[in-house]
């Protein structure tokens, strides 16, 4: 049974390893989030915004040409059609309502590719809340359009200039700023990482993805359960959402596609389950890419959203107990898969998402199998990367 325990652990992974200065904030959230989420008032506002603002339910689309090509029944869960272009907004809508209920006035968030930053800036504009986004200086350079989108939406974008100047460092900076402003500020973490209760809370907001897959598949195929669910994993929020209602349905295979970068043995990779060992980062115990001395290693992926040296604790647990299959997809293969999907189905995916598409080449299945791929985001933000790569 995959379930979080009362101390915030999934098996060996999770917990809340945080400086005491953050204890009151985390404790406030831990004590209240389940209760707040369970109220009809919260659910009404959350469900209402998901429907009318985000545009849910997103379609479960039968990809006929892709199915024919690979010899399986392949469905795409169209999170790319969410407002702002990716699944990230499911979580930010939930957390902004949570922040309001907790009486917070200000929002901070980290972002890698900028999708979570845009989704956060969007809900802050919607609710009239002050918004500051921390983003690695390197990511600011490679995701320029998203930086401008955040600014148009009224958010302040602050570069994180320490370390590798990517998602890990943006997260460090957001945590520091939360320590500096603990009373009036809520930190909207964008993935299933961070101290308990964040990984579980974010997974629950994203679980709407698998909730919809169940009834949509029932309508189309007469069963709630596909044979395989595939999702890409950086921190792992879209995967957690797509897997959530299938964690404890053993006949449904869960496949997580990690970023192998230039290859898992190249030294330029982000394949955490291959290269990582148990450690503590950003407040939770999880699998982590690190040196023998316990220093965190700089990851590499062509997709900024997967360029993270850790993985959500729930995924570390799924890996540990063998509940999910993990595959590692190299930059080049992901880019080709992005082009392949563009040309077979008319959908340009985010490069993160393209990793999940390529996983079709790395796992076994038979022609009657129903495969659901979580199409977590669209490729508009990645045009520069596609253009620079040029292989189309």
């Amino acid at each position: 049974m995959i379930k979080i325990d009362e101390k915030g652990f999934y098996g060996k992974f999770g917990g809340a390893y945080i400086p005491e200065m953050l204890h009151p904030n985390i404790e406030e959230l831990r004590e209240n989030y389940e209760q707040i989420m369970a109220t009809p008032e919260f659910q009404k506002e959350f469900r209402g915004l998901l429907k009318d603002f985000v545009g849910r339910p997103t379609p479960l689309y039968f990809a006929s040409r892709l199915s024919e090509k690979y010899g399986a029944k392949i469905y795409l869960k169209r999170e790319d059609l969410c407002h702002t272009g990716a699944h990230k907004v499911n979580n930010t809508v939930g957390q902004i309502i949570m922040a309001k209920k907790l009486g917070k006035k200000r929002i901070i968030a980290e972002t890698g590719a900028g999708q979570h930053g845009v989704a956060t800036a969007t809900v802050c504009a919607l609710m009239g809340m002050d918004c500051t986004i921390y983003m690695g200086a390197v990511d600011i350079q490679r995701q320029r359009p998203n930086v401008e989108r955040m600014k148009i939406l009224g958010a302040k974008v602050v570069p994180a200039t320490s370390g590798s100047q990517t998602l890990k460092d943006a997260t460090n900076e957001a945590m520091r700023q939360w320590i500096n402003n603990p009373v009036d500020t809520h930190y909207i973490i964008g993935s299933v990482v961070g101290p308990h209760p964040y990984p579980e809370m974010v997974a629950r907001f994203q679980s709407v993805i698998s909730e919809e897959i169940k009834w949509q598949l029932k309508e189309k195929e007469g069963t709630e359960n596909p044979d395989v669910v595939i999702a890409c994993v950086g921190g792992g929020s879209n995967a957690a959402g797509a897997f959530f209602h299938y964690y404890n349905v053993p006949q449904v295979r869960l496949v997580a596609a990690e970023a192998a970068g230039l290859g898992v043995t190249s030294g330029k990779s982000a394949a955490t389950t291959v290269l990582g060992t148990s450690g503590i980062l950003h407040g939770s115990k999880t699998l982590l890419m690190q040196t023998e001395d316990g220093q965190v290693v700089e990851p590499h992926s062509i997709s900024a959203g997967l360029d993270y040296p850790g993985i959500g604790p729930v995924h570390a647990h799924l890996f540990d107990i063998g509940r999910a299959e993990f595959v590692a997809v190299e930059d080049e293969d992901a880019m080709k898969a992005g082009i392949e999907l563009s040309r077979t189905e008319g959908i340009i995916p985010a490069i993160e998402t393209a990793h999940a598409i390529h996983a079709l080449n790395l796992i076994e299945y038979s022609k009657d199998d129903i495969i659901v791929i979580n199409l977590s985001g669209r490729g508009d933000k990645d045009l520069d990367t596609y253009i620079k790569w040029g292989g189309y």
Partner: protein
Amino acid sequence: MNRIDKLFQTKKERVLSIYFTAGFPKLEDTLLIMQAIESAGADIIEVGVPYSDPIADGPTIQDSNQIALDNGMSLKKLFEQLQDMRQTVSLPVVLMGYLNPIIQYGMEAFCKKCQEIGVDGLILPDLPMQQYLDEFKEIFDRYDLRNTFLISPQTSEKRIREIDTHSNGFIYMVSAHSITGARTGISEEQIAYFQRLEAMNLKNPRLIGFGISESETFTTASKYGNGAIIGSAFIKKIKESQDLKSDIESYIQSVIH
């Protein structure tokens, strides 16, 4: 007898603890810095174990961590440097660091080594109290290591009482809700917080840190606690120093007097 216990038995006022990052500014400066802190007249030496992701630290200490790592500092290297420190250093020595490098070394092996070379206490900012009680307290105790927890202005009275119960050595009062090096000076609001703590009559001595940089702030902090901790300001001093020994001595003496 543990040197921290011994210190607070005899000295209850104006205790000065100095933090520096091991391996900064140069890899082999560690012992020299410790000796200078002692000869200058400070009371506790806090040796920072550098980490790639120090989330409770501001830019000054972050930079010193990164430079130390780039210089080649690691826990193994640090233990080699400190192997014979007790031949020249008699002050209490506290290691301060984030949990991950220590867990990779192995908590038991780490604590054993600490005792062997004469370390007296630990400050691990991202070790939560519950985890400490569940997993590590017994090990710390076995190797006679004192454990210091942090408290901040947001820490509730109930939790302060719990922290006091489970701490030994001293309590680290973070003077404002902030990361290290973010503030200078002491406000009236902070003084109210110091007074609130003073009135709680905790069993552990209290050292005030974050925002202490010179004689005036040290004296103010010492009025409301048993003393103070200087970190970022000290790092700034040694970063610019051409003559570590004399600069450290003159700086610390200017704070004390």
